[in-house]
């Protein structure tokens, strides 16, 4: 509206007072009343805009007391959602019509959890905790995107919000898959390993899982090259301390440590899975 007014006035004046039609300009130095009006009116207008913005924002900050808490950990480059009963998933399952409180943290660099469908986002800052809440009102699947630049795979740091009925959610929530030696394939998906490692030999940010077990690799230990055989010990070390021995040709400082995130049994299961991907 304001823009249209300004543009229309501009075009009209340029036409009405063009050189040919109005060869003699009038030197109007200014008008105090006009200045006051076009200072005061926009001031009032922007104050209204401010207030609506503030009011809308405030409600997005006041979490209903019955909201279901979910801990969100962002890291390069995956999302991890952890529920009150310890269940962990790479996608956010939520029951219909129940408010959800997302408690946000980052394991490495700044990320930002963004759900465009519900028009909210909040940054995940390492060493700080922040939160968001929303109420899913439709049985739909929404996109989750990372909105704060975080490196190579930033634009692939995606996930989904899956809104399901209350009963479906109950079933999903209470199904805790046991960890045994065959869990590896499921675990590498849930814990975001596949954001950087492929299972078909393709090269991404990290080496592929396929065929690496038992191979001789040149790795960098504090910038010194050495040759090692990829075995259980190496894979376990790489999960706990990813920067200890980086395979030559791959960048350091990319992978988040899995220490305290994966249990010993889970790590063993993943090692077994990699071993079998030959």
């Amino acid at each position: 509206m304001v823009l249209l007014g300004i543009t229309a006035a501009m075009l009209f004046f340029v036409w009405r007072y063009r050189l040919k039609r109005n060869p003699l300009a009038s030197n109007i130095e200014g008008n105090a009343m006009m200045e006051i009006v076009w200072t005061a009116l926009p001031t009032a207008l922007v104050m209204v805009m401010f207030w609506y913005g503030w009011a809308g924002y405030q409600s997005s900050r006041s979490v209903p007391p019955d909201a279901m808490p979910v801990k969100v950990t962002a890291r390069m480059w995956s999302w991890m959602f952890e529920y009150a009963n310890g269940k962990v998933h790479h996608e956010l399952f939520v029951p219909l019509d129940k408010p959800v409180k997302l408690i946000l943290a980052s394991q490495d660099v700044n990320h930002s959890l963004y759900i465009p469908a519900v028009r909210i986002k909040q940054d995940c800052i390492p060493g700080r905790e922040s939160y968001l809440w929303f109420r899913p009102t439709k049985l739909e699947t929404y996109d989750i995107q990372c909105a704060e630049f975080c490196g190579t795979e930033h634009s692939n740091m995606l996930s989904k919000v899956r809104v399901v009925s209350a009963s479906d959610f109950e079933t999903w929530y209470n199904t805790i898959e046991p960890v045994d030696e065959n869990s590896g394939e499921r675990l590498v998906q849930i814990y975001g390993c596949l954001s950087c490692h492929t299972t078909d030999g393709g090269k991404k940010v990290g080496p592929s899982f396929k065929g690496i077990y038992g191979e001789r690799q040149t790795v960098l230990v504090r910038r010194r090259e050495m040759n090692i055989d990829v075995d259980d010990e190496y894979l376990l070390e790489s999960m706990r301390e990813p920067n200890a021995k980086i395979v030559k040709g791959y960048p350091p400082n990319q992978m988040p440590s899995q220490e305290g995130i994966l249990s010993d049994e889970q790590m063993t299961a993943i090692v077994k899975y990699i071993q079998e991907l030959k």
Partner: protein
Amino acid sequence: MASTVVTHTPAVLNYLEEKGRHAGILSWVLSTDHKRIGLLYMYTMFAFFGVGVLMGLILRLELLTPGPTIPGFTANMYNAVFTLHGVIMIFLFVIPGLPAIFGNFCMPIMIGARDVAFPRLNLLSWYCFIVGAGIAVLALFTGQGFPDTGWTFYVPYSLRTGTNVTLGMLGAFIIGWSSILTGLNFLVTIHRMRAPGMGWFQMPLFVWALYATAWIQVIATPVVGITLALVMLERAIDVGIFNPALGGDPILFQHMFWIYSHPAVYIMILPAMGAISEIIPTFAGRTIFGYKAIALSSLSIASVGYLVWAHHMFTTPMSLAALFVFSLLTFFVAIPSGVKVFNWVATLYKGSIDLRSPLLFALSFIFLFSIGGLTGLANGALGPNLHIHDTYFIVGHFHYVMFGGTGFGLFAALHYWFPKMYGRMYNERLAWYYWALMFVGFNMLYFSMLILGMEGNPRRYYDYLPRFQTWHVVSTVGSWILVAGLLMMAYNFIRSARRGAPAPANPWGGVTLEWTVPSPPPVENFHEIPRWEGSAYHGFEKLQRRRSEAQ
């Protein structure tokens, strides 16, 4: 058009002919003449602008389709290219911007001085700019390549990445000195060297804008210098100010970064607003409407602009009180910009308007800058911000302000002062053609981004969800049209600088002092320092009297 009395003695060479003590290229790179330094900045800045545009073209081409588009162009390359695009455009083009080119060239003449207060310091500023830029270029070709952090260098990512962040930051750090020294030089020049009789409220409005800008350059730039220095230290010896793993605070970095980088937005836009305030009265053939309101609004933008930085951080964990205050102040800073726009439009009222290319670009400035400003209000409101923060909406918004505003303002200024700089006219008809291309291409390129942002496409994405593709295609096609226009403009100026028709001293009927000296101006500008009487734009009264007598 009116011709003004020229106080030119033929014995004095113009600044393009006079070589000084050196010959060839040395007569340029060792010159302390403010006009030559202005051109040095212009040539180097436009060279960088060309590279920046090329980077932008590559980015847009990559985004033509979802997934990899350009063969062999990886996500890491994309990240380095958008960082390079941002660093070049911001630090090497829009921040030096109009002050470096037209401030240097015109300001001393406009206030009736023979040069700036410290001509050698002025040349040193250009060398800081060149050395800093050179170091940034070095960062491209050494180590693990150009930083991939975005021009904002956010920690902790900038502490972790293996790319050449330290070198890139060192370049920006040194370029900062150029900005500080130019600001200081202009402040002293404007305070001490105005022609006798020229009081503060008799200065041309472009000078007012430069004055407000110079204060920001001097006061705000050291903050970013300190911040960049701390990150370099953190990378080298782990001082632990910003790194959360060492007890540092990444949010502190963002505060310190934006304490400079938000006021820097006004370093970029204020001088362009100043140029618009010169162009509109000249082509409307009448005095500016609301001189004092425009002059003081520059100062109020410069001062309130310091206090709004955290609106870049609305999605970080901040207290509600901080959010409230920063959002409120952000809305306040919009008001003086609005006042300027209203006064410009009012200046057209009952004018005698000669619609030539400088005015055409100036009016486009008002339109595009208004879109930039109004979308800025949407960003400043806390509720909508939650959705559009860090999306393409932001990218669209700041390109409307920085390119539609500062860029088109700079092009308007170039069309306005080019005859003065080279003593030659350019092709006016061609200017209309490429204006049309640029205007259409620009809006396709950036309005699409506003829509993409509202649909939820985050920025700095190498890849995007397939549902966003339509507007990405429109945007990319727009970038081609815009660049076609830019190339035609470059051709027009490069050709006209050598072969254009000779320009008279005052081709547009301007009334400020630079139109009283020959085109191109003689060395040291004035044979005799002029005396100024009356208001800044009182010359239009004389002009109208002459016109009415002629009728």
